[in-house]
């Protein structure tokens, strides 16, 4: 199935794209997606501990399952003020 993934801030820098389309196995979880993306973009692994996820514009945890056409966002907490 195909899903859309958006990246923000440090995660966008790690990937070098603000948005990509990904082909992934049916019923995969967000954790599966992160693992797959970390293989392709190793810098994402370094950000793993403070990665925040959303699925279809809703905050989600790594165990959430995706379906065809879903939109995932991957971003960090921002710190500066």
């Amino acid at each position: 199935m195909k899903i859309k993934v958006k990246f923000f801030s440090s995660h966008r820098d790690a990937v070098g794209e603000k948005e990509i389309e990904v082909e992934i196995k049916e019923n995969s979880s967000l954790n599966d997606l992160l693992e797959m993306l970390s293989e392709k973009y190793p810098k994402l692994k370094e950000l793993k501990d403070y990665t925040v996820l959303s699925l279809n514009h809703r905050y989600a945890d790594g165990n959430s399952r995706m379906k065809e056409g879903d939109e995932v966002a991957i971003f960090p907490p921002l710190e500066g003020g």
Partner: protein
Amino acid sequence: MHGNSPTESDSMASDSITLTEEEMARYSRQISIPEFGKAGQEKLKNARVAVVGAGGLGSAVAIYLAAAGIGYIKIIDDDVVELSNLNRQILYSESDIGRDKAHSAEKKLRAINPDIEIVGVNERITEKNAVGLLKDVDAVVDCLDNFETRYVINDAAIEIGIPLFHGACMEMGGQVMTVIPKRTACLKCIFPNPPPHKKTPILGAVAGTIGTIQATEVIKFFVGMEPLLTNKLLIYDSRFFSYDIIELERNEKCPSCGVI
């Protein structure tokens, strides 16, 4: 109106607070906003707000809250003004370098609006003093630059029962969310793990954008305008002109506000 929603205190605000002729003139351009009116302005006059952190975000927040007529503003920061602050911390001028931010901010804000009460507190907010410093306000605005202290004011706001208006920025983007304790997601619900602390690059205008969104949230809250960014995280990215909203919910197991 401590801990109460603005709607509950509507009648109280209108009964006990009146606006002078000069105030009516000063705020006329916002009083004429249909949902705002004289009653909205009176609620702002009655409101007591703490701005924690008087940097890039805090500058924009404090200036707009003071200009809008929030009756009492407490600015908490223990830093001194440095040259490298001046790209974004628009509360200060070159002549403030080396002076403490809290009192420099107090002076600048008083010049903007002498009709309101402004108190500068030159102290670092910590677990020990947070509740003491925040218990005399109705809302706290998070303009900090580190998560360690953000968690401290998040927990203090929950303990006291006052809303927390969170903002943060980095490079060309930022995020905003509003927390109504025990009713909507708190900072710890959404960001249980902080990013590693470092001096983050920030464009001044971007800190200003995030700060003005926070100030708008505060004003909307007191006037009673909805919706707010409660259970929502707004992510702004100036590079691509984008605003994304992520829907949030409370984490029942949250170590700060959870029920389990």
